């Protein structure tokens, strides 16, 4: 590494030396030629009778501006001539060649600019690709803007977005005058078995036969559901996804008509959907017709998702009026179930991506700010370069190059920089999109659309052009109006910037600091949110816990509603697997439950005995969590009052409930819940204990009210196992799987994960937001530091003489150092003040992403000020130290 470095240094040194020697040779040649002229002229005048000194003066006078002629000749030698060409193309080519050459002559400048732009444009392209794929792209269905989701809400419980009940769906279907067609579905995990394969969990949707026509997508092979197949008692048919067709049937062209076995029942395959189709989610592999009528499910069960296609010409507002009227009518007709229930519609796109829009737009805004900072920085660099080149410009103007021509040339240079930066940006984007897809939360909808395509590249191009104009125009305009007088006067010693330009550069740095403050504040707030989120006590101890789910098919494990809870086959299996897994080596404890501690589960109605009866529609609901008696111990959920369950709480023992703290707070604010009786699904039981709140709806939400009851009093065919192991929980998985297989070789495990992983995944979105924001802030800070360093260090080099004078008058090095650092801090201070103002605006958009911290969190803002101050000190320290070591003698002599 060092070898390479030294050799490249040597090469650069050699190049520099050659250029230097070349300049010297040219200078000697020009001096020789002009000296000859003057000498000959002087002789002439002497021969004509003038005194030698007067003759010399006369020769000089006739010659005109000697210094300027020398300079012009020198530059003509060194610089490509910039004469008017014959055509725009030739000009352009010439400008391009000129720009490339002059950039190659300043490699470190070009490299810094291209890297800065590459990072800025690349990051923007990457985020845009996500925004485009997720938010902007139309949904892949026929006339997608006419697709709407229909929701219910509940005024009494304050819910906004609920699914419909089946009777409500049929009523809307019949009464509405705004939808061309409607469809409803629910999702289910089914177990696929077959003679040649391991049992496999497959995600399916059971949908009314209108699903595919509503979406406007037809099967690629075979057919969609017929109306008869959508009626109760219709044929058992299934449409499969393209992915399933490939993985399960090996892409068999003759698949239509074959049968597959789902939960022990045979279904005939009637169609294959096109590749990429996945509604309601990309992971759906099977669609079965919903063979239910208006009376197949109670009006109180809200588990049917509803999609509708607006009739042509109908707006969403109009559709909202219509369903609101229908809901009002249903409220009157079915007050018991529908009191307080309203209905509303929103576009399918909004329903799909509504909750990720804000975070994505915030990120896009943030990354846009990064690009702005990058532009400001590049503009600053161009300024510095422009002042160095002022002489060149002055000379070329003197030679008759038109200002417009020069402007075009500088713009060409900016354009070359911008496009090279854009190309670098495309590369950066290519890699960062991959990184985003790895780091990004998996539950981000439509993530499969994200990638580099012509649209995204178009955005890259646009950003490149935009940035090129932005950072290129200002310095170019400055440069095209050079002050010839000063440029020539100071030409000998390298020029200095005018007051106006220095002020402009300072303004740029202030802008840069301000933008960085906005980003750093955003990152700080998200960081603190995430930290707060990590501090949240989940209410259980997830370490070393493996969780798996099993679904017992009702064909072999009868689950008739009428017999509930008397399901001996289900109870027998659960007892057996409980026993078998408990006796596995390495397993410390195991428990069964309807849900793991990280599943939100669902709610059901309950009544507390001894309270005045409430109207049917106003009954309370809370989370229902049936568990085995060892669930609390296995998952590490403390019982804070009373007792948990014991092995004796079963069979003929009196039934008992354990409620969580949230339930106690909400429903027993002023009394002791222990000893109270409560009724669920006709079971009345005593509350014997209060368990600590488990954040099963997510770490960022308060724990919802819920209660636990013994699983054998409320059995479910689908359940989960939580297994606490001595070592790595995943290592226990094969043994657990084997025990399930021994009991029933046609069962598949699903939702296999460790609880620490599940918790980690549950904060994937905030983590992702925080991570990206932190990266953006880091980039912006670095750029701002470079900007501060540039301006301060330039100021020091301009004021070497002044500093020398001050030091010769007795100022100490320390005093000079302090003064320079103070300048850097002053510059930063102004930027920070402006930036804090800006971040208040930006944080408003951010506030929905924050957790446990307000958008105006003072400690965070304080930390931002400290960080920026630190950066300013660091960035101005180097030039300040240089200033403090100025040797007064040398500085004064250089004058």
């Amino acid at each position, binding site marked *: 590494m060092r070898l390479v470095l030294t050799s490249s240094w040597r090469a650069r040194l050699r190049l520099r030396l050659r250029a230097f020697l070349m300049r010297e040779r040219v200078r000697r040649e020009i001096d*020789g*030629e002009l000296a000859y*002229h003057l000498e*000959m002229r002087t002789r002439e005048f002497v021969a004509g009778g003038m005194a030698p000194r007067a003759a010399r003066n006369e020769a000089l006078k006739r010659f*005109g501006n000697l210094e300027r002629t020398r300079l*012009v000749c020198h530059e*003509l030698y060194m610089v490509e001539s910039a*004469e008017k060409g014959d055509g725009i193309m030739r000009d352009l080519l010439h400008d391009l060649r000129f720009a490339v050459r002059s950039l190659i002559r300043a490699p470190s400048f070009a490299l810094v600019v291209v890297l800065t732009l590459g990072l800025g444009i690349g990051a923007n392209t990457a985020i845009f690709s996500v925004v485009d794929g997720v938010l902007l792209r139309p949904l892949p269905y026929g006339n997608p803007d006419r697709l709407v989701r229909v929701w219910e809400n509940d005024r009494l419980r304050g819910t906004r977005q609920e699914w419909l009940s089946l009777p409500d769906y049929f009523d809307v279907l019949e009464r509405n005058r705004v939808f061309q067609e409607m469809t409803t579905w629910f999702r289910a995990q089914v177990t696929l078995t077959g003679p040649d394969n391991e049992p496999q969990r497959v995600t399916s949707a059971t949908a009314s036969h209108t699903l595919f026509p509503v979406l406007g997508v037809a099967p690629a092979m075979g057919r969609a559901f017929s109306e008869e197949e959508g009626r109760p008692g219709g044929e058992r048919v299934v449409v499969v996804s393209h992915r399933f067709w490939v993985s399960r049937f090996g892409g068999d062209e003759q698949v239509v008509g074959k049968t597959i076995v789902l939960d022990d029942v045979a279904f005939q395959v009637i169609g294959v959907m096109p590749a990429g189709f996945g509604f309601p989610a990309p992971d759906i592999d099977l669609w079965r017709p919903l063979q239910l009528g208006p009376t197949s499910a109670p009006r109180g069960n809200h588990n049917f998702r509803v999609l509708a296609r607006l009739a042509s010409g109908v707006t969403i507002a109009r559709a909202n009026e219509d369903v609101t009227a229908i809901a009002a009518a249903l409220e009157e007709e079915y007050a018991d179930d529908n009191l307080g229930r309203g209905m509303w519609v929103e576009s399918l796109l909004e329903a799909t991506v509504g909750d990720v829009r804000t975070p994505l737009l915030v990120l896009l805004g943030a990354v846009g700010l990064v690009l702005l900072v990058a532009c400001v920085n590049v503009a600053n660099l161009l300024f510095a370069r422009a002042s160095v080149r002022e002489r060149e410009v002055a000379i070329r103007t003197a030679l*008759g190059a038109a200002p417009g021509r020069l402007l075009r040339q500088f713009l060409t240079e900016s354009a070359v920089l911008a496009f090279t930066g854009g190309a670098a940006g495309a590369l950066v984007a290519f890699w960062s999109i991959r990184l985003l897809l790895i780091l990004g939360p998996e539950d981000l909808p439509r993530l499969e659309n994200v990638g580099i395509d012509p649209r995204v590249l178009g955005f890259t191009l646009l950003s490149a052009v935009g940035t090129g104009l932005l950072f290129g125009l200002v310095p170019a305009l400055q440069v095209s109006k050079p002050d010839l007088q000063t440029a020539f006067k100071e030409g000998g010693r390298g020029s200095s910037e005018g007051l106006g330009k220095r002020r402009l550069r300072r303004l740029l740095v202030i802008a840069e600091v301000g933008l960085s403050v906005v980003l750093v504040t955003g990152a700080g707030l998200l960081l603190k949110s995430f930290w707060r989120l990590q501090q949240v006590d989940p209410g259980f101890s997830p370490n070393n816990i493996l969780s798996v789910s099993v679904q017992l098919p009702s064909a072999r494990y009868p689950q008739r509603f009428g017999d509930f809870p008397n399901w001996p086959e289900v109870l027998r299996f659960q007892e057996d697997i409980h026993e078998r897994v408990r006796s596995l080596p390495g397993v410390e404890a195991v428990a069964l439950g309807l849900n793991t501690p990280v599943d939100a589960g669902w709610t059901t109605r309950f009544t507390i005995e001894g309270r005045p009866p409430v109207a049917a529609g106003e009954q309370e609901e809370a989370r229902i969590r049936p568990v085995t008696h060892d669930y609390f111990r296995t998952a590490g959920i403390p019982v804070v009052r009373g007792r948990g369950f014991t092995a004796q709480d079963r069979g003929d023992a009196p039934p008992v409930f354990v409620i969580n703290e949230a339930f106690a707070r909400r429903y027993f604010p002023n009394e002791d819940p222990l000893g109270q009786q409560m009724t669920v699904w006709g079971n009345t039981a005593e509350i014997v204990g209060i368990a600590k709140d488990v954040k099963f709806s997510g770490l960022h939400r308060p724990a919802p009210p819920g209660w636990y009851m013994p699983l054998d009093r409320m059995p479910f065919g689908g359940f989960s196992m939580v297994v606490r192991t001595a070592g790595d929980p995943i290592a226990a998985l094969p043994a657990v799987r084997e025990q399930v297989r021994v009991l029933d070789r046609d069962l598949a495990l699903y939702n296999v994960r460790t609880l620490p992983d599940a918790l980690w995944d549950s904060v994937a979105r905030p983590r992702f937001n925080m991570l990206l924001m932190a990266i953006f802030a880091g980039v912006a800070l670095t750029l701002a530091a470079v900007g501060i360093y540039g301006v301060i260090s330039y100021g020091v080099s301009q004021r070497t003489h002044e500093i020398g004078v001050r030091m010769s008058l007795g100022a100490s090095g320390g005093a000079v150092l302090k003064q320079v650092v103070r300048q850097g801090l002053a510059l930063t201070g102004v930027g920070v003040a402006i930036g804090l103002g800006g971040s208040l605006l930006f944080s408003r958009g951010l506030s929905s992403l924050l957790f446990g911290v307000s958008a105006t969190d003072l400690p965070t803002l304080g930390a931002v000020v400290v960080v920026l101050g630190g950066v300013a000190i660091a960035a101005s320290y180097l030039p300040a130290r240089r200033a403090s070591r100025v040797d007064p003698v040398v500085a004064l002599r250089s004058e």
Partner: protein
Amino acid sequence: MTPTNPERLHGTLELLVLKLLEAEPMNGYAVGRRIQELSDDRLCIEEGSLYPALYRMERRGWLKAEWGISENNRRAKFYRLTRVGRKRLEQEAADWGHFTTAVGKILESV
């Protein structure tokens, strides 16, 4: 060809230099003196401006510069017309003719 070209003076100077060098290679000083002599001191150019013109024409390939020995045995830079320069001279001279004729006509007729 645009007679109102603001670079007319540059162009004129270039034309004169080309014409002078057509006869024989000369150094810059001699070129300046010849212009003065031949115009009977009426074209009093700032002598310094001659050199940028020479350098520019050299850059464009109209002239070729070589170091040689002057009549008084001093090292001096001599400029010689190249083939491109010769062509350029023909064109510039023709242009100049058209230009002066046109201007003359207008001056006489108005």
